[in-house]
């Protein structure tokens, strides 16, 4: 049985000291071990930006793709081999700017992968520009007078896009985050976890202290029920999206792979490629 240490490698992350992403890395490693995975059974597919480097910092199969496209790559991996556990990971620029279309369509498609966004409300690697998650009035290099665009309400977006597992966490809550990732991996279908992962260098507003002050844990809200989508939407609006925990889960909806006719007994990666002569002749005859 692998332990979280087996998911560590000897690469030193190039994240700034204090970056929230360290905890996300640790949480993925712990969750993977806790659900009983071996490193070779896990594929981490990441985007571009500081957070995108995460696929190189976990000892497992890793694919560091192009900006905004971690999700389609990850879905392709899962379609080719459903025996693999696939985690897509990236930042708020990846998921909510350049790759927003993929985020929405992955949610409604519901292929069984887990998507973790390290949301720091800023573009860090390009040295401090506004993000679609930045608050109105947020001053950055690209918004010197303060951002005038509304931030995207991603949790509400996930609910309306048809996501079947919607959760949010804060990177310092390592225990809660690990547990959510475990649940997400075990969920049959697309799982989305947005993690507030503060940028200590460029975001001086949404700091660790700011989140501690402003976040509410769903488990502290009396009567909260993650199977109730209406309640989930209401709560998100009430708390301006600043809640953590499992927001919504639909356990009834089958994942995409199970709904494709004829798909799936043998993973495509292990399937026989050559057509039989009979099948070939049958296909040819249809054109005569």
């Amino acid at each position, binding site marked *: 049985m692998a332990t979280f240490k*087996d998911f560590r*490698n*000897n*690469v030193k992350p190039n994240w700034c000291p204090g970056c929230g992403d360290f905890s996300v890395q640790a949480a993925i490693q712990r969750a993977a071990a806790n659900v009983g995975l*071996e*490193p*070779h*059974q896990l*594929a981490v*597919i990441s985007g571009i930006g500081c957070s995108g*480097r995460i*696929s*190189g910092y976990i*000892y*497992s*199969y*890793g*694919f*560091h*793709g*192009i900006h905004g*496209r971690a*999700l*389609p*790559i*990850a*879905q*392709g*991996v*899962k*379609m*080719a*081999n459903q*025996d*693999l556990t696939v985690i897509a990971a990236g930042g708020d620029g990846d998921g909510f700017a350049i790759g927003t*279309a*993929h985020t929405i*369509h992955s949610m409604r*498609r519901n292929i069984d992968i887990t998507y973790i966004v390290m949301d720091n409300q800023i573009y860090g690697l390009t040295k401090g520009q506004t993000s679609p998650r930045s608050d109105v009035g947020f001053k950055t290099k690209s918004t010197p007078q303060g951002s005038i665009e509304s931030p995207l309400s991603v949790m509400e977006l996930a609910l309306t896009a048809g996501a079947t597992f919607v959760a949010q966490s804060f990177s310092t809550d390592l225990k809660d985050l690990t547990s959510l990732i475990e649940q997400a991996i075990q969920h049959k279908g697309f799982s989305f976890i947005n993690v507030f992962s503060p940028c200590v260098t460029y975001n001086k507003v949404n700091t660790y202290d700011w989140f501690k002050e402003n976040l509410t844990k769903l488990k502290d809200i009396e009567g909260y029920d993650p199977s109730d989508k209406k309640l989930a939407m209401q709560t998100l609006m009430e708390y301006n999206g600043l809640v953590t925990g499992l927001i919504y889960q639909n356990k009834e909806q089958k994942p995409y*792979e199970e709904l*494709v*006719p*004829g*798909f*799936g*007994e*043998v993973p*495509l*990666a*292990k399937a026989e*490629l*050559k*057509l039989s*002569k009979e099948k*070939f*002749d049958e*296909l*040819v005859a249809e*054109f*005569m």
Partner: protein
Amino acid sequence: MVNQLSWKVGGQQGEGIESTGEVFAITLNRLGYYLYGYRHFSSRIKGGHTNNKIRVSTKKVRTISDDLDILVAFDQETIDFNFHELRDGGVILADAKFGPKIPEGSNVSLYSVPFTEIASELGTSLMKNMVAIGATSAILNLDPSLFQEVVQDTYGRKGEQVVLNNMEAIRKGAQYLKEELGFDRSDLYLEKADGQKRMFMIGNDAIALGAIAAGARFMAAYPITPASEIMEYLIKKLPDLGGAVIQTEDEIAAATMAIGANYAGARAFTSSAGPGLSLMMESIGLSGMTETPLVIVDTQRGGPSTGLPTKQEQSDLMAMIYGTHGEIPKIVIAPSTVEEAFYDTVEAFNLAEEYQCPVIVLSDLQLSLGKQTVEPLSYESIQIRRGKLLNEELVPEAGNQGYFKRYEITEDGISPRVIPGMKNGIHHVTGVEHDETGKPSEAAANRKAQMEKRLRKLEQIEFNNKVHKNDKHEEPDILFIGYISTRGAIEEAMERLEEDGVKVNHAHIRLIHPFPKEEIRPLIEKAKQVIVVEHNATGQLANLIKMNVGFADKIQSLLKYDGNPFLPNEIYTQSKEFTKQGVLF
């Protein structure tokens, strides 16, 4: 008696013009004739002139003909738009309903046939198409009962009565022409065909069948003209084979999803046309940099931007060879016939895995949508070659938290490959420059070594028949060079030039990139002049040839970019014109 003729049916889009052509063509194909059909259509669902031109011959034909023998018209626009194509002595069969007129003084015979009226009497005006087929059969001296089988296949699911009515419509059409109009011209009787059963398919069918034969079991694509038939075929066939097609949100998702599936060990691909390929450029670079196999089919149409979505063009060439930022190894192959479209698609999947790079199958609208009789496809020739993909048992022990050298520097530049899930194969993949284990690295020496390794892979590329050659003359006056669907028109123009005493050789390039310098150079060397025939405005193929082998002073471009395919006569006449102008010889 004729051994070949051209028939065209025209009317408004959405009026059943396509199915009329289908019933006519499939029947003749089953009788053993060789056919070549080309549709004129617009980017709209209903309305607008559309036509289906079908050439029928007792011998193999590879393109549309210059002129037209028989035109079936359901409206005046069809006559006005197509009249110029009719040869002297040609025939128009027009629906009496619209009061057809033709220009005075022409040597074309117009026959008004009450297509709609006869059909309505039989129950529904929808069958006017069948009446027209019947009238056509009378001209060609074909018995109406020959259409029974195809009518049954086409309308059987609507019930026996519908089949009976449609057959009656065909008979009535034939009868009207013979008995009411007294039509009988033995010069238009069609010679008997050999009765051989052959396939009748569009290039996109062959590409789709090729992909399935190659073991492609996953496809991600976004609908676009003229590529959609490929994904539609796989959507129909993959459930039986355990695979899946995902219609993605855009072409970026399509290409990257295919990359993900290939990385994970499936054979996966996407297909699109110019606008989609433009969106895929960054993904193509990712495939090249991460050495992940990827097959993309580009069915070229009129560009730039939305351009001419339903028209013929070959203007993506340079973009397909050089498109994507930075420098990667890439293979571009360009089949010139439906048969080659099948074999080259199978080969594309082999090359993608052997050389671990993107492979583009370059088609064009005429090849992709032109429907033609196809010689038998060989099952025995289908090979599955996966290159340096290792069996799990052969992957050496990785050791404690060790990484597999996925990007190992090797002599031929190709590294052993593993797929996720293999116990000892753990490695990292990134579009960032990386070392042998896939770890990001900016070190100058590593950069140079990895760059050279990737580019070295294609130095010794093996590809069967890189250039289709007809080099029978030692010192030809003209060497024609073309690619993809211009092959038929060039071959027919050659025949006519040869009859005039001009010595002509022909090279049709099948492996576009890496460019087959060694094959092309000697062909150009011995030719007095080279005419490069292509469907674009800037002579992209001609420039590519000059860039690779020189001979700029010998090369003359023959270009067409009005959206319509080259006709043999245009190539013949233009080549003669070049001669007169002293451009040649």
